[in-house]
């Protein structure tokens, strides 16, 4: 690895604080495979990753993990409990795990997740696993950063209408029914099978038990099959271009948003906002006036 664990951890901290990724690091990215693990809270995402790390280490691959948990909307604090499930890998030099709090970012990841993925990639990890917060139906940002997305579910989560809905189910390259030890796995397979929509990649539905370790080798086999498909179909290049564009747009949005908020501090802008609050001006006229008078466009 081209940098020490301590250099990497300090770099990640700076990225998390909003500092830019040094250009020489970006030049060294693009080699790691990025695996997104997402799904509702409590389905066993972290425990499955713990098992996947075993599998990958057996193959001699190094693994970086980014594990996101939610920030409290009340206190601003967070209980980061994903690492607990993978803690036994802490002593392994070939594994680097970093827990991140969302800090009010919506979408399932954190502001700096794309840059932190670059840092782990540049540090030389073969596989970077990104675990999202426990998601609902609409937190699909992981699809913007990952090459392969595995959506983890568990038995009894809902009927076929639930799986027909847009959002989370649509971004899955692989569907995993974890906790298959809990029930009749045949039923789980039928409930979770996605509609056949003529995609070239036939999205598999797999059964795993992070508890017993069953199905993990098959899951890794499906991830590798998907990665081979990404390369042979040129889909990898398309996904990575999409990811690069999304990253630049997000960085730009965040800079412009900061600049807008700063400009709104001006007394003239504050007066316009007050007029809206007092119902003297409607929000659309306020935007027109702010654009003209404060932002000059």
């Amino acid at each position, binding site marked *: 690895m081209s940098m020490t*664990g*301590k250099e990497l*951890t*300090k770099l*990640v*901290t700076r990225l*998390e*604080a*909003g500092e830019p990724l040094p250009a020489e690091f970006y030049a060294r990215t693009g080699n790691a495979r990025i695996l997104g693990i997402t799904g509702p809270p409590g389905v066993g995402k972290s425990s499955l990753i713990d098992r996947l790390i075993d599998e990958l280490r057996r193959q001699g691959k190094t693994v970086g993990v980014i594990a996101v948990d939610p*920030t*409290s909307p*009340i*206190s*601003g*604090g*967070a*209980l*980061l*409990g994903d*690492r*607990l499930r993978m*803690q*036994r890998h*802490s*002593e392994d030099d070939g594994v*680097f*795990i*970093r*827990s991140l*709090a969302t*800090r009010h970012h919506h979408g399932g990841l954190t502001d700096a997740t794309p840059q932190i993925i670059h840092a782990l990639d540049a540090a030389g990890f073969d596989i970077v696993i990104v675990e999202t917060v426990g998601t609902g139906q609409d937190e699909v940002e992981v699809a913007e950063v990952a090459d392969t997305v595995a959506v983890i579910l568990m038995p009894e989560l809902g009927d076929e209408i639930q799986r027909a809905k847009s959002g989370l189910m649509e971004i899955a390259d692989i569907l995993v029914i974890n906790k298959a030890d809990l029930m009749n796995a045949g039923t789980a397979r039928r409930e979770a099978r996605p509609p056949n929509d003529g995609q070239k990649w036939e999205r598999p539905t797999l059964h795993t038990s992070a508890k017993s370790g069953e199905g993990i080798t098959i899951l890794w086999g499906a991830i590798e099959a998907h990665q081979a498909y990404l390369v042979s179909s040129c889909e990898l290049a398309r996904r990575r271009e999409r990811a690069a564009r999304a990253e630049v747009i997000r960085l730009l949005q965040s800079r412009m948003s900061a600049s807008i908020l700063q400009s709104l501090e001006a007394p003239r802008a504050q007066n316009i906002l007050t007029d809206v609050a007092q119902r003297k001006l409607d929000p659309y006229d306020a935007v027109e006036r702010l654009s003209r008078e404060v932002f000059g466009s």
Partner: protein
Amino acid sequence: MKRPIKVLIAKAGLDGHERGALVVAMGLRDAGMEVVYTGIRNTPEQIVQAAIQEDVNAIGLSSLSGGHMAQFTRVMELLKKENVKGVLVFAGGIIPDEDARKLKKLGIQEVFGPGSSIASIAEFLKKRVRPR
């Protein structure tokens, strides 16, 4: 945005008494901190590597089983060996006064015994964690 204080809460060795550590972890979360909770049966090596990878400001070690001297001493040795600087270490649990004095000599900054309030632990961290 100001970076919240990041704390690792862990139990070392063969000690399954988790409730106290979990209550402290949740209390510090409610005090606005980011708490990495790694649960029971951590080795000192795992605790120190987790502290490095997570880049925490502080480590809280809990013990209720009597293994605190051996386990916590090893954590302090490893932190020194790994040249980890600026990380505040505190402890809690059933720790006799005499042992608490020895632990403080090893560099553990405070020992919170039974009856300590969450507020006092949060206050201690807010006062003592080095801004960076």
